């Protein structure tokens, strides 16, 4: 069967168009959630993960935690002193779950979750609940230590490059006597040019 040069050209054009069309359509893929992310200078997942990990590992060496007495800690606010919308609670949440996975620390309910805690406690006092199994009011355990911190950034830029420096500082305070039991910080620098 002979193919005329015209139809061969047409075929080629059609193929080319198909290839181009396929190339233009966007693809969705799953990625490595732990991969180093350098999409933009903004505070990103790698920053969150490295800060949380560095803080946890450092805190596990703090004497009050290393002695194995499983101290009770409450997480307070990490103040965001940057002008970027950074949810520092996402960082403290990571730190908290890594610490509790270590089995070395226990956590008491924090300020943000207090409302739900009280709500549930009060709900169980109603007549619908079995008296003997309902949680009693006045049995919550207070924390011995509180965790708080700061996140600051310094941003500089000129025409060609932009530089961001983050410093995350975390402190463990003894609630009873107000002593600082442990403190550490993690620095991150990112440059875009």
């Amino acid at each position, binding site marked *: 069967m002979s193919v005329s040069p015209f139809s061969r050209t047409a075929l080629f054009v059609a193929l080319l168009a198909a290839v181009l069309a396929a190339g233009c359509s*966007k693809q969705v893929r799953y990625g490595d959630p732990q991969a180093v992310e350098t999409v933009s200078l903004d505070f990103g997942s790698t920053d969150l993960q490295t800060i949380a990990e560095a803080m946890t590992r450092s805190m596990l060496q703090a004497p009050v935690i290393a002695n194995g007495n499983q101290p009770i800690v409450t997480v307070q*606010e990490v*103040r965001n*002193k940057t002008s970027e919308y*950074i949810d520092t609670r996402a960082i403290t949440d990571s730190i908290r779950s890594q610490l509790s996975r270590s089995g070395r620390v226990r956590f008491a309910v924090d300020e943000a979750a207090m409302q739900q805690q009280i709500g549930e406690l009060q709900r169980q006092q109603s007549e619908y609940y079995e008296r003997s199994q309902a949680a009693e009011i006045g049995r919550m355990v207070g924390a011995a230590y509180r965790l708080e911190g700061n996140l600051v950034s310094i941003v500089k830029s000129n025409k060609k490059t932009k530089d961001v420096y983050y410093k995350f500082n975390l402190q463990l305070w003894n609630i009873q006597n107000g002593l600082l039991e442990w403190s550490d910080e993690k620095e991150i620098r990112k440059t875009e040019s």
Partner: protein
Amino acid sequence: MPDRKPPAHRPVTPQAFTRLRLAIVLAAALLAGGCATFRSYQFELSRTIDLVEVGHPDKALETFERFNRRSRSSLLYFMEKGELLRIAGRYTESQQAWFEADAQVQKWESSALANPERVLGAAASLLVSDASRPYEGQDYEKVMLTTRMALNHLALGEWDLARVAIRRTHEREALIARLREQQVRKLEEQEGDKARAGMREIDGYPVRTIDNPGVNALRNSYQSAFSHYLAGFVYEALGEPSLAAAGYRQAIELQPGVALLEQGLDGLDGRVFDRGSGLTDVLVVIETGSAPARASTGFNLPVFTDAGLLVVPMSFPVIREQSGGARARAVSMGEVDNTGAATITSVDLMARRALKDDMPLIMLRAVARATAKGVLQAQARRRDDTGLAGALAIIGTVITERADERSWRTLPAEIAIARLSVAPGTQLLEIETESGRQALEVNVSGRYALICVRLIGGRAYVAATPAPPGQSARAGVRHIGLR
């Protein structure tokens, strides 16, 4: 010139010809009037806003729908419609309209990310009038859109959804910032100083309307202190001080030296940990007036062609000075007497800044079109000296040459805020403006509440956060009137 003249051969008398020319011009004018592509957006919106100003938001909506019988899918249509519905207090419907608008902006966002050059648009429509391109929205409108969606969610008591809209606002802002940065870099590479010359070259252009200290004090056309303060307030109300701090801080950076904004940040820790007072922290938002209009105005643009220097009539958008409307000065409510209200965002200035930033590109495109048209006219005139083709060419230029007048007009011109702590319950809210006092009865409840008042033409339209579920306060507003 004379030696290239064709042999004298005139089939029509000069008088007959003059009559013919007149007829053509008239017909063209009629056509232009009836043609949907060239309808006057500003005329329609002024009529609509007039109705809002005299207290008929529903009629305004009706009128607006009638004007848009044939084009109910454009971004601008949904933006304006959403605002009109919001003014009429129909928040759910308003939200639907804005969702449509937002979907279009999202489409723009993803295409902008995929292909920044296209969005930069320098070459996109060199020869087509700006007004006939699909409207993609000004940057400040895109940012305002999600801010206003957040306000709608709050009016419906949906704080969590408001948070989503707020987040979208600052994500969008960051995206726009990145795109514009690229654009500036690109333009500087390509055009050098040519692009920066801007509107000073247009003879008679009212430069002061877009180049004045107020406009130049803005960091850019799209970031507003109000959007960020509102973000701070919503995050604070949801118990997220780390995000609230960022919102308040950005607001301060955008509008430095406003005590009210600084108090927002300074008092944050205290407010978050204060659970006992039983008072409601109320943010009063006072929106006045409506966003300025862009008017297509004709100027003569000198262009160089191979036929020599030609003066081509071109139109450029002009934002005329508008009487700023009555700004809010102070607010009284409950025991709080006369606390200061601060105007923190001016959409009027943002619109002017947007036009100023656009001007270099508008100029580039205008020069390209003017050159093409100038050549066309010169050629037409050269080929037949009856002047008929020349006349047609001129008509063509006049018709197709209309500057882009489109912009989101129903947005407020100025946004002021006041913040106070009052006992929950029904309270008398008094707003002192430059032109008198407005008194309203509003109901506040919960730890945080937002009252949004739109003052337009002596009318007040109020949107307040309803009581949180479980609290049986009558949500409602009663307008007492002007005093």
